[in-house]
């Protein structure tokens, strides 16, 4: 902003508000404009306007489709049923954000802003928190809530404002709760004793409220999901809004305190204990020919990224335990679970070089074909996914092997292998086209890559093609044809992945070398 224009605005503002506050306001406005401009340039670098127009279109179409189906069901839904649904959304959103580091908002690294002449941490926090709502998914969910409110109470200005406030408080409680859980997941250390105490109490409070709301129906009354359902069903307005804002205020104050401590300390990093040196040494140097060092550092990279590690632990343990104790009766359960496991990894799959950031130049210096490192990274992620699926299948084989026939197990295995290979093909192409730096040490690694949006959509399309095709073959054709199809699909994908794609990756990685490295600079 030109200084003359800034001075003019300042003088104008000083006639209305006191000079001290005026200066702070101008600083905040300038900072907000700076951050928004930076965000826009970053988006342009990573996808261009066509990509973001595409993403916007996908969200509008999704919003339309969801609204249409929601209208059919929600008209009949009671406030109680809506409350159950919204409570589940709240819990799922918090857990997803805590595990993946993606809470669907725009996360701004406050440590980077410390150097600016900002006016205190509280204002900086408030500004970055509010800017966090400028993200596609949060704006999309606001549209859905507005639609919902209109459906229940009819269009009105007060209804619009209530729904907007309800959405803000609901989403804010998710973001703040996720922020605290994420701190615990990342193992960040706080400096001050009081912050540690507040953090521990808040964590217990959040965890307790999730568990209590899941276990006791009466306790759900104070859950943000239940409060939002009361708001949008029009049953009550003031009390739910007051309770939601109280929730928000409490979490906001706690998070401000904790984030101040984290922002002005350098303890967010992770240390490798000295005692690990030997084991790590042997991991790389033990039998060095196979698997290749690139594959091994690929696995290490995933396991050292907190998000990928927690997803892996959660996916493996949850798949096994849930299946073992729920004793599912048919193959569709397994297909759905495999799909869900693969979906969680979408943002890693679609951005394989993200964790390497600009160090990806090293791959261009290794004396091997350039497609090999990327391919190895992809296989290393597939290994983690296969382990998660194996734990699911192991629980199934232990519990329900007699209920599900061999043909169904073949069907499940064929889907699992095909879906992993489908993810590989997509992931490799998207990782070259839309790479984005991921800060594996940060509390939140920011943004949403294009790959994270496209991979789930293609997984849904693949599922919608695979299930009807196999069902048709099983009913109409012979067993031999059915089994041939189950073998043919993964084989075809394997050929596509190893043969056709290999030469494309080689050409694309060399052709776009400078663009890839530039995008990965972060």
């Amino acid at each position, binding site marked *: 902003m030109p200084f003359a224009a800034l001075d003019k605005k300042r003088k104008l503002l000083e006639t209305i508000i006191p000079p001290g506050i005026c200066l702070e306001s101008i600083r905040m406005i300038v900072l907000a404009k700076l951050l928004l401009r930076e965000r826009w340039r970053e988006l342009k670098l990573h996808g261009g306007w066509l990509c973001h127009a595409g993403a916007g279109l996908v969200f509008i179409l999704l919003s339309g489709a969801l609204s249409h189906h929601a209208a059919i069901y929600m008209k009949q839904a009671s406030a109680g049923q809506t409350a159950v649904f919204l409570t589940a959304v709240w819990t799922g959103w918090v857990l997803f954000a805590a595990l993946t580091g993606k809470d669907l908002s725009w996360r701004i690294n406050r440590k980077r802003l410390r150097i600016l002449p900002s006016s205190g941490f509280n204002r900086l926090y408030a500004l970055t928190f509010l800017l966090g709502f400028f993200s596609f998914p949060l704006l999309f969910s606001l549209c859905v809530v507005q639609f919902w409110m209109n459906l229940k109470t009819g269009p009105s200005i007060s209804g619009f404002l209530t729904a907007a406030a309800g959405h803000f408080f609901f989403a804010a409680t998710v973001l703040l709760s996720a922020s605290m859980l994420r701190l615990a997941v990342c193992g960040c250390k706080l400096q001050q004793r009081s912050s540690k105490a507040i953090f521990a109490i808040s964590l217990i409070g959040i965890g307790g409220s999730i568990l209590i709301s899941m276990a006791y129906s009466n306790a759900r009354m104070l859950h943000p999901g239940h409060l939002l359902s009361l708001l949008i069903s029009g049953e009550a307005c003031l009390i739910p809004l007051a309770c939601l804002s109280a929730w928000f205020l409490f979490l906001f104050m706690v998070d401000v305190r904790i984030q101040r401590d984290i922002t002005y300390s350098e303890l967010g990093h992770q240390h490798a204990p000295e005692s690990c*040196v030997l084991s790590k040494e042997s991991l790389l140097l033990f039998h060095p020919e196979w698997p290749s060092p690139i594959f091994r550092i690929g696995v290490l990279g995933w396991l050292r990224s907190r998000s990928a590690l927690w997803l892996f632990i959660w996916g493996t343990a949850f798949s096994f335990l849930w299946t073992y104790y729920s004793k599912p009766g048919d193959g569709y359960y397994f297909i759905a679970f495999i799909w869900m496991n693969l979906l969680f990894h979408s943002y890693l799959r679609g951005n394989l070089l993200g964790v390497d950031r600009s160090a990806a130049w090293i791959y261009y*210096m290794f004396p091997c074909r350039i497609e090999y490192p990327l391919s190895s990274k992809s296989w290393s992620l597939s290994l983690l996914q296969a382990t998660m699926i194996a734990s699911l299948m192991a629980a199934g084989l232990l519990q329900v092997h007699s209920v599900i026939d061999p043909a169904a197990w073949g069907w499940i295995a064929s889907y699992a292998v095909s879906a992993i290979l489908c993810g590989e093909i997509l992931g490799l192409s998207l990782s070259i086209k839309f790479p984005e730096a991921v800060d594996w040490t940060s509390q939140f690694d920011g943004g949403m890559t294009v790959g994270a949006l496209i991979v789930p959509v293609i997984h849904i399309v693949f599922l919608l093609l695979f299930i009807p095709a196999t069902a048709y073959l099983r009913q109409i054709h012979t067993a031999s044809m059915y089994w041939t199809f189950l073998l043919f699909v993964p084989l075809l994908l394997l050929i596509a992945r190893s043969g056709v794609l290999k030469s494309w990756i080689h050409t694309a*990685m060399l052709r776009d070398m400078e663009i890839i490295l530039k995008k990965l600079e972060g």
Partner: protein
Amino acid sequence: MIVSVSVTDLSKAYGKSLALNGVSFRIESGSVYGLIGPNGAGKTTSLAILAGLIKPDSGSAWILGKRVKAGCSELRSKVGFSSPQFPLFDYLTGFEMLSTFGLMHGLPSGQVRERSKDLLELMDLQAAAGQYISHYSQGMRHKLGLACALIHSPDVLLLDEPFLGLDPASNLRLACVLQTAAGKGQTIILSSHNMAIVERLCHRAGILHKGVLKREIVLESKNTPHLSSRLSTEHTAGLEKAFWKTVGSPEMNIPDWI
């Protein structure tokens, strides 16, 4: 004299800004060539083109008789590259990073272990060998990057600002390593703002300015005593003498394989 590195009419533009404009030079085997020039003169771009990390808009670069092309894996095993502008995998420990480089260059695991330990000691990074690179300071990262470039004893070393941010002991140790490597026939191209080191270490220096190689200077004969002899009191004076007296002379155990 055998020419190891040859650059002919190299040009590169970033948008409208011309980083290199028709740069040409030739470097003989076993010599140290210094690229000097102000910030933005095109030093890093020249070295990155030679490393195959940036494609030139026109002109050609040749190393050991082979044309440098992005993706030419044959040449990569003969070249070592380091630059503070090109970071390392920060989710690995220092030891793992070095081992990965060694293994990727086809060294047997025993040799990788041995050389990694030698280099970590040489760069004074033994204590941090088991720490993630994300926790390294800028200087430590830089030293590790240099070690990665050295581990496979490449025929040609391309070093961008190798002395940037190094403490005096590391500075001297690195200079000795480079002098030893050149003495054994390795060709070294380095860029630096430190004129004293370039003058002491290089056989020739090229002055780059606004993407143009303005001048090439042949520096005095390098039959001078080894740089490690600078630690002896008769060669040092003033502040440097006081410094070494206070902190103690650094160990100069340069491994035989370098």
